[in-house]
């Protein structure tokens, strides 16, 4: 099989490097040049070895922070941001909640958030699935606007209600509170049986509840 032999003599294009071949190296026609290892390769290789040595020493002497240190620093930074944000945000008030509950705009603003996050457990009409019915007068964790807000904000994690305060900001939770309140008395079909205590909100505006 002549085509298995090496360099083609009639090959006129290109060039054949005139490097020295290693004497006696011929494996099934494959020969090898006696070229040195490219110096830049050796240099970078040595560089990576030296760097590795430095890294190992530095991390052991504490010049490079370890996982726990980085985590502590990172969490401290977050806590600072969170407390700053908390200072800037006024406590939610009854007025804010009542105003939102009266505002169709606020209710509409929360619709997509409800459908995307709440409907999975409470149903699209709030009729209750995994989670309780939101349309009747019975509430497990309180039916006042403030209670609804708190339940949304802090969740009831042992029962599977997430703390949405981690996901939504104050305004969004206020709007969601308004949305949930707006479901009252809608009486959808297939509603889940009542759970919890009966709660009757004040007349109309809701300003009197809580």
């Amino acid at each position, binding site marked *: 099989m002549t085509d298995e032999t090496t360099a083609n003599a009639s090959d006129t294009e290109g060039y054949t490097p005139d490097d020295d071949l290693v*004497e006696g190296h011929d494996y099934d026609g494959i020969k090898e040049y006696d070229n040195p290892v490219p110096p830049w390769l050796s240099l970078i290789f040595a560089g990576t070895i030296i760097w590795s040595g430095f890294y190992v020493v530095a991390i052991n002497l504490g010049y490079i922070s370890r996982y726990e240190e980085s985590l502590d620093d990172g969490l401290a930074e977050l806590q600072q941001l969170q407390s700053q944000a908390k200072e800037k945000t006024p406590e939610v008030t009854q007025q804010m909640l009542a105003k939102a509950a009266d505002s169709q705009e606020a209710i509409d603003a929360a619709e997509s958030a409800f459908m995307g996050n709440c409907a999975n457990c409470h149903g699209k009409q709030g009729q209750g699935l*995994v989670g309780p019915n939101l349309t009747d007068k019975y509430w497990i964790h309180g039916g006042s606007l403030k209670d609804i807000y708190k339940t949304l904000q802090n969740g009831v994690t042992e029962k599977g209600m997430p703390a949405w305060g981690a996901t939504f900001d104050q305004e969004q939770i206020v709007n969601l509170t308004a949305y949930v309140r707006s479901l009252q008395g809608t009486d959808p079909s297939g509603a889940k049986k009542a759970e919890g205590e009966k709660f009757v909100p004040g007349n109309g505006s809701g300003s009197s509840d809580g």
Partner: protein
Amino acid sequence: MSASSTGSSAATEQVTYDDKITRYFVLATVFWGVVGMGVGVLIALQLAWWPANLGEYFTFGRLRPVHTSAVIFAFAGNAIFAAVYYSTQRLVKARMYSDAMSWFHFWGWQLIIVATAVTYVLGYTQTHEYAEMIWPIDVAITIVWVVFAANYFLTLRDRREQHLYAAIWFYIASIITIAILHIFNNLVLPVNFFKSYPLFAGVQDALIQWWYGHNAVAFVLTTPFLGLMYYFLPKAAGRPVYSYKLSILHFWTLVFIYIWAGPHHLHYTALPEWAGTLGMVFSIMLWMPSWGGMLNGLLTLRGAWHKLRDSAVLKFLVVGVTFYGMSTFEGPLLSVKSVNSLSHYTDWTIGHVHSGALGWNGFMTFGMIYWLLPRLWNTDLWSKRWAEIHFWIGTVGILLYIIAMYSAGVTQGLMWRAFDETGRLMYPDFMETVTQILPMYWVRLVGGTLYLVGMLMLAVNMIMTIISPDAQPEDVTATVPKPTWREASDTDWSGVETYDAALDRMSAKLKNGWHRLLEGWPLVFTILTTIAVLIGSVVEILPSFLIETRTPTTAKVQPYTPLELEGRDIYIREGCVNCHSQMVRRMRSEVERYGQYNRPGEEIYERPFLWGSKRTGPDLARVGGKYPHLWHVRHMRDPRLTSPNSIMPPYPHLEENELTLGNVDEKLETLAMLGTPYSANNIKNAQENARDQAEKIAAQIEESGGPEGLEDKEIVALIAYLQSLGQDVKGTDLKGGMQ
């Protein structure tokens, strides 16, 4: 060999190479290439469009290991064997030692592949990535591998060429190291024919697995392909290899350093940080040894670049080597802790492995096969044009694939860690980070499909070449010099009587350097290679076993109840680990999103560990108690009922399949033998205990308005398991102390 061959040109003999075995391995390579890549395209579709998850058996979780095993062990594996059998016989001028052993190897390997694919689809898996095969298959692999190795080393013993060429160094390193990796990563105690538990648990199990996983990449997908390159590239280019000295340097540094790099797969996890640090610095040091191989490949083409114009073979090989260079630069980059904190669990990793797999392994294989086809069947390739088109379509496919994955990976990684100015996660809803990258999953599907089309073109080209009337599949007989070098006995020191004469003889032997001497001693060469790979293994793995006895077990960490254990085995069966990690890393974005990071003490009963390597869905280490039981029932029935836009497959069969508790006591017994503190009573009452717990959960589901009569269905076991996750650390703060 210079001394022995001069003046003995008359002393020749005939040798007939066994090319039939190579032909079969080439056919198998192409067949499994089509299958493995076909499954790859299917699972890429499943990620982009969940309804492509077909029923109980063909979900992503079960098919992903079919894809990885098929392309790694069936496609690349058979390609390696084709290269090894073809080139070794010619490089040592000897036929394989035993045809029977060669054929045992061939058919044994194909049967193993079929058994592997069937068992994965049926849900029998050990979950260790790229080593999911159940223990009987592991035993079969060991037997076939030993036969292959024996056949190989006996061929080297009977060689006519005195010195071993670089390609063979790489083959030797591969054969030895794969055997070591395979055995240690599959040490399990069987419960029965289909089920076993690993000897190591938690952190140790993870370390062993990624020592294996990383070095499977090294010694299945790198070193054998470097051997392949050292034979087929200079052959196809008709040029001598650029530098023998570089071959020596990069071979030894590669095999020594590679083995240390595994822990870089476990940065920020419960693995002690020092092991990760070692994994990282050795990965960095691995950069130049890897590039040594790329350079020796590319520089061999000096003066021959014009040949690429007309040669699809050279195009494939050159682009293959270039992708090798790319991914071996990217590898060290990804091993840096800070980079890894972003890339890990994302599609960046998927992009990285596919640039290596499609670019390096795939293209090197294609180049080799296009070079081999006309030689093995003694006829022209059916269509050079089709080979050219295959090259271009494949290249475009790879680029689309990896660009899509880099983009998806970086995007999702950044979203996971983004905080807003109020110090809260910017994307607390995991789903948001999934829907964001879905378009990229479609682009990946297109790229993968193009690559598969190229593979199919190769299959057609191969079939047409073989069925051509001119095809003559005959074995090649070559006239080779007799191995006169054997006559000069190494041990015969008669006549060497003075100290100076002995010195002369020694220096004559070392005239061409110590390495040349080593190339004439296959056994010594093999022993040294083994030592090189064992050093890193022992230094990294041994301390973690010594530490085990000192690791304080978190007081609240309890072994799984029998029902939870059954649920865990269902989780394993369904391949949940392929998309869900159970490892909250020591990073603020993880702690904020999921809860406390995982500590080694929590992992002591985890057999096997289920940390995962990719988060297509969210981490589950802290999911216990997060949702009511009924939520899980609905979620498994159809994930979109509870999580709109979810891409998870539905698992309605879990509500229908009978919960079999027949061997739960044997499972407990096996685990007790391994050290899990189950008492004799626990084992005796296991079934009863499981029934009780199942009834309780089923009652709670019914009470909360869910379906009735689930107490004897698989879903309750899975729920019991999921609800147990993270419960052991409830009520403790981040540092593991009581709040």
